[in-house]
């Protein structure tokens, strides 16, 4: 959904250059270019800052995110950095705790989608035949069904009590484009000589995928994880905004939901609904920009730009 397909259109597929005899200095070469790529540095810095804020933030305030501690509808001040909600909750405490939920949903949801997508893609691409037909059919079916629609119906019947559950649901529905991409890359790699050599030396499918195919598209796999991570955060925010996430914890989507349903919009309580959106943009936008930077780092043809 949403979001899921959006990342697929935001980058062109980088071409995979097989690196059979990997020189020793390869990793440090990437590091060299990464540290000189402003897109990577900007995106990475942005995400890192938000991550630190998520980790440290809750310790900077003594107020619990859902406790009714302060005055109601207070604008940002030195005591309440981000102001308070209509119920007297501290928006800063909600924001930093919401960031934690966002990172949790991104890591778990994106991680599951990554594992499922890579497994399905490698298996379908490498084994081929009837297995490929079946996996491809499943991929196409899940790809067409709007992720949010299926999440709405599942979350409506299943009470979602934790962000981990929500993330698992997101991960299980947002993998198809990743599977497709990995399958296509595997197709183009599996006819190379070094894969034939591995086959001749009687290594099994799993070993060939793990030692020959995956290392040669590691950059692609890393970028795929980044996009899935960002996509999962966006879908999670939509679900929470619809009120389908856990209601006894706080997330950035739920903050927007409560600000909206308490008419914060009409009353102009901008400090309540602006930060959660900016937080999501900082994380997801940072991830996307970092991805472009990585693309240039891994793909020498893009570097001169």
């Amino acid at each position, binding site marked *: 959904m949403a979001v899921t397909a959006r990342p697929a259109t935001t980058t062109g597929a980088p071409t995979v250059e097989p690196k059979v005899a990997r020189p020793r200095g390869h990793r440090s070469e990437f590091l060299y270019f990464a540290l000189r790529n402003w897109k990577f540095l900007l995106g990475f810095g942005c995400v890192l800052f938000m991550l630190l804020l998520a980790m440290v933030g809750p310790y900077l305030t003594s107020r619990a995110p859902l406790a009714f501690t302060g005055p109601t509808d207070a604008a940002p001040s030195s005591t309440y950095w981000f102001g308070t909600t209509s119920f007297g909750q501290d928006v800063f405490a909600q924001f930093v705790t919401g960031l934690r939920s966002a990172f949790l949903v991104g890591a778990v949801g994106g991680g599951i989608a990554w594992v499922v997508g890579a497994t399905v893609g490698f298996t379908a691409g490498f084994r081929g035949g009837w297995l490929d037909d079946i996996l491809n059919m499943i991929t196409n079916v899940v790809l067409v069904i709007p992720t949010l*629609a299926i999440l709405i119906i599942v979350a409506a019947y299943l009470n979602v009590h934790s962000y981990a559950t929500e993330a698992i649901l997101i991960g299980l529905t947002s993998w198809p484009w990743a599977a497709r991409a990995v399958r296509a890359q595997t197709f183009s790699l599996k006819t190379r000589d070094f894969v034939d050599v591995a086959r001749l030396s009687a290594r099994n499918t799993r070993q060939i995928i793990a030692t020959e195919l995956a290392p040669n598209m590691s950059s692609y796999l890393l970028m795929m994880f980044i996009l899935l991570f960002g996509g999962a955060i966006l879908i999670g925010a939509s679900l929470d905004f619809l009120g389908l996430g856990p209601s006894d914890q706080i997330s950035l989507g739920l903050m927007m939901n409560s600000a909206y349903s308490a008419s914060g919009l009409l009353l102009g309580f901008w400090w309540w609904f602006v930060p959660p959106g900016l937080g999501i943009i900082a994380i997801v936008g940072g991830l996307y920009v970092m991805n472009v930077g990585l693309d240039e780092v891994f793909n020498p043809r893009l570097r001169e730009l």
Partner: protein
Amino acid sequence: MRRYLARKVGIYLVTFFVAVTIDWAIPRLMPGNPIDRLLSRMQAQPGAEHVLRGYYSKAFGFDVPWWKQYLNFWAALFHGDLGRSVASFPTTVSSMIFGALPYTLALLVPAILLAFWTGNKVGAMAARRKNLDNTVLPAGYVLTATPQMWLGIVLAWVFASTLGWFPVSGAYSLSMQPTWSTEFVWSFLHHWVLPFLALYLVAFGGWAIGMRNMIIYELEADYSNYLASLGAPRKLVRKYAYRNAVLPQITGLALALGAVVAGAIVVEIVFSYPGLGTLTLGAIQNRDYFLIQGIFLFLIVAVLIANFIIDIAYVFIDPRTRLGMQGGA
């Protein structure tokens, strides 16, 4: 071409079958008796509970074996029967969906098409042009990373609530009835601008970035270099690059539909726009399960139909699919 379309239709039929099965299975697979769970979550009045229980048992058809329930579900579906709404009782789910549909389409169709068209044009212009690229690229990334509902909230706050240029909510002035009068159309357009913008801007960013990257790849291709070395004007080379780069974008359009529909749902909620999104929220809040299930099925059918239209368009645009060569994702 016939094989290409037949394969696509095959996938869509399987998807439809799977979607209907999911729609049927989810209430039955969840732990516990669905009727008890529905009633406990509805917190109905004691008198109403008895009536509701009777209605649900009949509607789910639990008194017959499961395979017969499944067949009955399909039979009802082909009669256009998606059940009745619980919150606004005798109204059928299908009539509620069709009542909300025009508003959603009025937002979605222009947003999708305009964003696709302008996004691709701007993205293509930005590629390999330093100054434009340095503005389009960051703006595009910020826009794609923006949650649509948040953009909607901010637009409503700035342009409706603070500046008062546009109305905050609804699809037309509350004092009016939908007619084809000039005042009504004007009022409708006035209410339409902000939710449209929220959907349009986010989608625009995605297409602009996608096209910018595609054009760079195409301009590096052999045919571009060859054309340039023959002394073809830069404009002509770019024109050929654009025509090749737009093909994957059209495939991307089919993939992005689900995301745009999801965006429309949340944006409608922000503006209380009386389309499917607001209907969904009401259904979630009222625990109106048949309505949720009906909307789910309807959304999937709509996305399938849109996918099919894109596939047909692809046949006209990409000659390789017509000639039975490879092509088409």
